[in-house]
């Protein structure tokens, strides 16, 4: 024992003393906090604390002119805290008021209790203002129950259901993905409600209120130091023009298909029509579930947004793409002529009647099939690429730059990418032995090519802009100064010179203005437009009627694509509807009532026709 002389062992008592003294000090402090201090115990006696979620107002949505598209209406959730429910309440009257059965009452209480005894659950969701007033009067007799205000969406114009999207109860995956959400929350499920969920939702607040034994709220607990105010969501201004959108929906009535109109200089979508559509007010409130199932079972599939989920062969509207790539690769010049023997041409027949040797502009005006087959062949066989496979790869790359074969991935959920077949695809399909005849259909926009109406409208916008585009998107701005995502304001170049676009544009102008133009019957009084008809072969039934266009030619303000499923020729339905849309947008009115009436009343519903 080294230090025995100093008797260090006695020092243990000093140390034990320190431990014990600190323990005693802490116990005295705890005794005063827990037993003597009454202020901190308010909640432990007769009062209970109620934690009321303060739901923020979700951001409103406006169109490009400030017209209100979506706003909020108050509804009331009846909440229950199972641990506070008295066993002696008159459930018969309560059930009668709520219009639920006694079994349902028990089931709901059990479900809530299963979730938590001390935490509130929704007992009856989304009670109307009238019922709320009624039930509110007698609620004091039912401790453990209280009302919580929340909002549901309302759509004054009842337009653009797919674009605006809907809000539905949160599912398990969404709940796990973001800790912000709680079990009874609602989140955007489609459209901009889904894409801009984070901006629109705002931030929930919390209010802690003291409630006495009579189920009366006695005000904020501790003067509200624990409360947090909800932060309202951001408003959103869309590029959509509500008037044009409503007009488009009326024109598309009774038809299946879509209209996509884009402002070429910004890429903002002006009209986003899919038909058949539905009233967005059907998918809010207590009727949502029932209506949703009804829409889901509808054989015409009104829930699908055909403008992004429908993929179609572009038909003759694809001829501009082939013309542009052929020009850029130096495979043709504007004056190049190819021979056309009309219906006797090989390997592709011509379906139009025109002179025997059209040049490029003529070929667009007349939609000459052999011309564009030859131009496509000249491109992929161009000696400068070495062999046809490298030529095809060049062609493929150019289509990608023109925004085809892939998603734009901006702010439109559930977009599809369409299809531009890759070289590898043909190598596999034909065992490596293929040539320009094998894939001749690509020259006229048939075969494996599939595009979405959105991609097609973007082609029109590219031609209108003479060489560039902004990825098509819905948002114009937020209600505050937040910048919109950079992707949507990034100018995309196509790698094709402006002079080539001028030739194509001239050809498209003559589609309206030329003597043989396939849309000469849809000229707009006072506005010079450019366009191109398309008639896509459809193995399942009548051909699809397609049209792409832009106007005015000098300074395009609108570019669009129209697809009418089973509508036959492009000039029959799609072209007149396109001309009306452009006229309406540019002039603000239309003065061709006969055309308008014919288009609005026309019914080309293949499903209905086939049934009859």
């Amino acid at each position, binding site marked *: 024992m080294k*230090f025995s002389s100093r008797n260090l062992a006695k*020092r*243990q008592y*000093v*140390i034990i003393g320190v*431990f014990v003294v*600190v323990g005693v000090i*802490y116990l005295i402090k705890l005794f005063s*906090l827990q037993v003597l201090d009454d202020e901190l115990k308010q909640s432990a006696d007769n009062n209970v604390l109620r934690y009321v979620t303060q739901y923020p107002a979700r951001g409103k949505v406006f169109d490009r002119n400030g017209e209100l598209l979506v706003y909020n209406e108050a509804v009331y959730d009846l909440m229950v805290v199972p641990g506070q429910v008295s066993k002696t309440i008159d459930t018969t009257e309560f059930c009668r008021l709520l219009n639920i059965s006694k079994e349902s009452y028990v089931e709901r209480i059990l479900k809530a209790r299963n979730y938590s005894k001390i935490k509130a659950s929704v007992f009856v969701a989304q009670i109307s203002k009238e019922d709320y007033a009624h039930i509110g009067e007698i609620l004091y007799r039912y401790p453990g129950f209280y009302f919580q205000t929340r909002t549901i969406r309302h759509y004054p114009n009842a337009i653009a259901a797919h674009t605006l999207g809907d809000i539905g109860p949160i599912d398990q995956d969404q709940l796990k993905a973001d800790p912000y959400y709680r079990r009874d929350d609602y989140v955007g499920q489609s459209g901009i409600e889904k894409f801009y969920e984070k901006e629109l939702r705002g931030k929930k607040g919390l209010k802690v209120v003291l409630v006495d034994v009579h189920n009366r709220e006695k005000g904020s607990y501790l003067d509200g*130091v624990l409360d947090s105010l909800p932060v309202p969501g951001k408003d959103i201004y869309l590029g959509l023009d509500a008037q044009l959108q409503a007009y488009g929906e009326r024109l598309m009535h009774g038809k299946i298909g879509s209209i996509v109109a884009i402002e070429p200089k910004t890429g903002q979508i002006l009209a986003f029509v899919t038909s058949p559509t539905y009233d967005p007010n059907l998918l809010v409130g207590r009727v949502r579930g029932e209506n949703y199932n009804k829409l889901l079972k509808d054989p015409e599939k009104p829930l699908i947004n055909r403008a992004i989920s429908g993929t179609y062969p572009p038909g003759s509207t694809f001829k501009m793409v082939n013309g542009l790539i052929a020009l850029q690769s130096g495979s043709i010049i504007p004056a190049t002529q190819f021979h056309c023997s009309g219906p006797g041409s090989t390997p592709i027949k011509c379906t139009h009647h025109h002179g025997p040797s059209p040049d490029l502009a003529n070929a667009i005006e007349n939609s000459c099939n052999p011309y564009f087959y030859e131009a496509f062949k000249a491109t992929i066989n161009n000696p400068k690429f070495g062999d046809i496979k490298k030529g095809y790869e060049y062609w493929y790359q150019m289509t990608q730059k023109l925004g085809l074969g892939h998603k734009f991935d901006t702010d439109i959920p559930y977009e599809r990418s369409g299809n531009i077949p890759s070289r590898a695809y043909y190598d596999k399909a034909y065992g490596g032995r293929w040539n320009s005849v094998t894939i001749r259909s690509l020259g006229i926009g048939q075969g494996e090519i599939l595009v979405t109406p959105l991609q097609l409208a973007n082609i029109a916008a590219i031609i209108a802009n003479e060489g560039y585009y902004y990825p098509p998107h819905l948002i114009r701005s937020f209600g505050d100064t937040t910048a919109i995502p950079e992707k949507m304001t990034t100018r995309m170049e196509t790698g094709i010179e402006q002079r080539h676009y001028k030739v194509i544009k001239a050809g498209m102008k003559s589609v309206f203005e030329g003597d043989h133009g396939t849309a000469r019957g849809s000229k707009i009084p006072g506005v010079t437009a450019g366009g191109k008809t398309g008639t896509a072969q459809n193995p399942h039934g009548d051909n699809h009627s397609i049209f792409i266009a832009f106007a005015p030619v000098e300074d395009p303000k609108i570019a669009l694509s129209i697809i009418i499923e089973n509508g036959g020729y492009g000039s029959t339905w799609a072209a007149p509807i396109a001309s009306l849309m452009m006229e309406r947008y540019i002039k603000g009115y239309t003065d061709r009532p006969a055309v308008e009436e014919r288009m609005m009343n026309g019914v080309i519903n293949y499903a209905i026709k086939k049934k009859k």
Partner: protein
Amino acid sequence: MTDRNSIIGKVDWPLLLMFFALVLIGWLSIYSAGMSEEYHPIYDFTKFCGKQMMWIGISLAMGFIILLLDAKFFDAFAFWIYALVVFLLVVVLVYGKATKGATSWIDFGSGIKLQPSEFAKLGTALALASFLGRQDADLRNRNTRIGVYLIVFIPAALVLLQHDAGSALVFASFIFLLYREGMPYAGTLMIMTAVAVAVFVLTLVWSPKVMCIVLGSLFVLTLAYYLYYRKKGIWTMVALFAVYFAFIFAVDYVFYKVLEPHQRLRIEVILGMNDDIKNVGYNLHQSRIAIGSGGFWGKGFLQGTQTKYDFVPEQHTDFIFCTIGEEAGFKGSLVVILLYVGMLVRIIKLAERQKLAFSRIYGYAIAGIIFVHVAINIGMTIGLVPVIGIPLPFLSYGGSSLLAFTIMLAIFVKQDANRLKIL
């Protein structure tokens, strides 16, 4: 091996029972604190209490293995263990630079993370015990003291570099064992530190001017006492007062220049200089409401309201005591504090009956560590100590902390069980 069969009979059961009681209370409190979310079974491994159960299993298994090891192992390997934890602290520092934020964790992948600073205390305790337990070690000797300083300061500095001031503070707990082992002025240092803390607090509360007057009057009285009774060491006394006077003026500087803003705020809050009820003061206010609302009998298991709903932050880790205070009331607080004090006194008593200096010193080391943890953690929840984030031993949620404390205790229990074999 007869040792293996008899180990159960030789361990100190009172100490182990207190340990089991604390672990059980901790686990139930973590389960209760996690109840605010949807209903889930108590063994759900994705939840805190399920994970804690897993860690309890691992810790008990480790503890049991330690009881089976040779008692001499820890003395023999103390420096290697120490070298390993220092190495891990360096690793976490280097690795932590690469991954922003969590600088005190080593991630082993698949969700297993370790906090080396929790094990650094254990390693340092072993190294100190082994170093001071040697025959030639004498704390009156300068070389021995330099050795002690090095052993403590290296890990403490590394922990401080991780910006974990709370854990670094725990290294001060070794003052208890140094005092017990007879380091000159260790006792004086403890008293002086206590006085310095008092001066610091009072200077901030009263302002330097008032503090000067108070200390000045105190000095005059002491001087008069020394002169009147012709006491020795008057110059030491004068020098001491000079240091404290200088300290008064240093307080302002330390407080506003040396401390980081969040540390300053925490001190301001505890001294009532700043309410700041929404931010820093929020933790304190919430935890006091939770504990205070428990009353004498508590609200009952799982019936707490304050410690759910995310009102009390970190309610399953550093603020776990709130759940106990709210749901078990004063009687619960009493039980927990009695368990801790009982455990500490028991460790000291067992340490004093050791024949090996290593075992005794080690016992004092871990008693100091546990004491500082408990005092800071509970003191923080009831507003006696500024908010410093260190866990409550055996109770707080967290694998590293539980494992490190269990190993710490198990080594001591093993040393104690072995004491009769030492001739």
